């Protein structure tokens, strides 16, 4: 029998038809929508005079532009309010499940999907958001799509998609203390560059991946897009099943046993061939931080910003433009750089384990005077747990400001903006120019590093601040 990869198994099982010399007609099991990339899709359905083919396969939540204060009140920003209202209208009209602002399971779409057990192994999942790759942590094919494709899924439950090439990234070995899954993925992206996996779908494997919790795996898969990959996935195992057991939408009883038996078949055959393979040793990985304006521009927090040696042409021009934006010089150390804001949140690191780790590390400390510290839970459920576990109290005593769930300062569509020229160390996923507000300077790092920076007030190694 032909040896196939996990990606092949799931992909091939969802191809309705292969168009000769064209893409596949690809069936979608679950579709998540939010307020920003869906309204035009619904509008176009109306223009065509067609409806939603299978509303039970779509789940909605407003997350991108929602305020993170006073969510029980009318949204002040008119355009944001209109988008959220349009989402409500569209969900009501077509009978789509909506987890609205203030409801028990409201939150960032990539946080609530797993939390509710909607995301399951073997599924195909899409959303008009590039971080849909997050759901790949469960052994699902999950990727971001554009609004035209949102319309296709609503209208037909399919999209036209060419199968990506296959890449496997194996990380073996044991990471040292203070090194999180965020550091693993920032390290991988720094190694292979922000475009290094473009055209590929990535499977993450190896003992350092298998030993991660589901939430840590989600952080890894979430950032697949930051190296250009369509998505990333991890074969489901006992950790996956344990996480899903008892979740609201997880199969129950006999159905559960049947599902687990199927999920256990979802792995890459030994000897299956990938188009590209990378191997890394977790022992080589240290706490990481980005210094530039794409997520591939990462170094260890104890490292120096690369010099321009060996760079030429547009490569060098773009590099210097990026450093000029950040206000950094080639060759200088990043440690000790002054910071103004820290942000803990986003679909990358806004889950309960992230908040627990920040709270555990800042307990008994105070944030530095020069730091404004925002903590934004990924969902209402995360917020609730943070309260119940006493984490909110610890964080507030340390001087952090807890806000309500949403995408918030990750993309600064709402009022949570980093002011121009200010430095933010952020647990989010993108350090693009202006990503966290016009002129904002973003450095990406793990929740632990962010906690350390909040206390020290400057770039530092979390191992030096807390582990002694």
């Amino acid at each position, binding site marked *: 029998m032909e040896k196939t990869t996990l990606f092949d198994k799931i992909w091939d099982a969802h191809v309705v038809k292969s168009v000769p*010399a064209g893409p596949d007609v690809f*069936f979608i099991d679950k579709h998540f929508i939010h307020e920003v990339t869906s309204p*035009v899709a619904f509008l176009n359905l109306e223009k065509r005079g067609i409806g939603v083919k299978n509303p039970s396969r779509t789940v909605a939540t407003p997350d991108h532009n929602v305020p993170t204060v006073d969510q029980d009140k009318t949204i002040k920003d008119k355009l944001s309010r209109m988008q959220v209202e349009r989402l409500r209208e569209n969900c009501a009209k077509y009978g789509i499940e909506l987890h609205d602002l203030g409801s028990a399971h409201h939150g960032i779409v990539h946080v609530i999907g797993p939390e509710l057990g909607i995301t399951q192994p073997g599924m195909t999942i899409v959303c008009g958001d590039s971080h849909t790759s997050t759901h790949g942590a469960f052994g699902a094919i999950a990727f971001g799509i554009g609004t035209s*494709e949102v319309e*296709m899924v609503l209208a037909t439950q399919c999209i036209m998609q060419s199968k990506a090439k296959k890449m496997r990234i194996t990380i073996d070995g044991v990471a040292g203390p203070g090194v999180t899954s965020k550091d693993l993925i920032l390290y991988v992206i720094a190694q292979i560059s922000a475009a290094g996996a473009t055209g590929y779908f990535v499977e993450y494997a190896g003992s350092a991946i298998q030993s991660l919790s589901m939430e840590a795996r989600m952080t890894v898969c979430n950032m697949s897009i930051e190296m250009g990959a*369509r998505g990333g996935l991890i074969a489901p195992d006992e950790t996956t099943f344990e996480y899903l057991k008892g979740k609201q939408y997880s199969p129950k009883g006999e159905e559960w046993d049947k599902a687990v038996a199927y999920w256990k078949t979802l792995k890459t055959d030994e000897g299956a061939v990938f188009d590209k393979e990378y191997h890394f040793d977790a022992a080589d990985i240290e706490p990481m931080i980005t210094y530039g304006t794409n997520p591939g521009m990462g170094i260890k927090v104890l490292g120096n910003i690369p010099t321009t040696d060996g760079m030429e042409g547009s490569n060098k021009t773009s590099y210097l433009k990026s450093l000029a934006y950040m206000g950094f010089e080639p060759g200088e150390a990043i440690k000790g750089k002054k910071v103004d804001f820290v942000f803990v949140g986003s679909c990358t690191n806004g889950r309960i384990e992230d908040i627990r780790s920040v709270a555990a590390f800042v307990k008994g400390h105070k944030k530095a005077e020069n730091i404004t510290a925002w903590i934004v839970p990924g969902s209402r459920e995360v917020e609730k747990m943070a309260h119940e576990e006493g984490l909110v109290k610890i964080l507030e005593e340390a001087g952090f400001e807890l806000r309500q769930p949403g995408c918030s300062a990750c993309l600064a569509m709402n009022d949570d903006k980093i002011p121009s020229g200010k430095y933010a160390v952020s647990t989010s996923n*993108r350090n693009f120019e*202006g990503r966290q507000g016009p002129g904002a300077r973003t450095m990406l790092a793990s929740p632990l590093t962010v906690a350390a920076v909040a206390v020290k007030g400057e770039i530092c190694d979390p191992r030096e601040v807390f582990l002694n």
Partner: protein
Amino acid sequence: MAYDKFTVLTSTAVPLPTDNVDTDQIIPARFLKATEREGFGDNLFRDWRYDVEGNPKKDFVLNDPTYSGKILVSGRNFGSGSSREHAVWAIYDYGFRCVVSSFFADIFKNNCLNIGVLPVTVSPEFADKLLETITANPETTITVDIPNQKITLDSTGESESFDINEYKKDNMQNGFDDIDYLLNMSDEIDAFAANK
């Protein structure tokens, strides 16, 4: 929705010799708050094009009247980051029908083809050649020929062929979109879904 047919385009071009132009630069998130697909061209490259007070930045190419045209030629890894189709809507709405680069991000490329903007991938050498030539001679035209899958620098006749699959090629030439195709095979999709 359906768009204008695209077969052969001859036009002057706008040079943007920057690598890793991400979709947050093409259109910042704060301009994604519309519920209709209109007016995005005004905010194309917003933060490179205008200062915080909204005044045009003189050194940005879209503010330089020397350069214009329906083709945008950019550096490597164009369109990375967010899946926002608004980025392509902004490019289309501004008046571009074709973007040329030596490397495109995947989702961006799909989004382009879905609304009738042609992404043309050329070799890094040819991309540099195009950028140099149109920067030095803004009157120079480029011809993009979908039926023959060929891009030509008209002043010198230098050309390269480019990839586009037959299905998308046909769509672009006829102004069709994927939904037209999918709606036509709804029985097959239903039969498939029944077994899921």
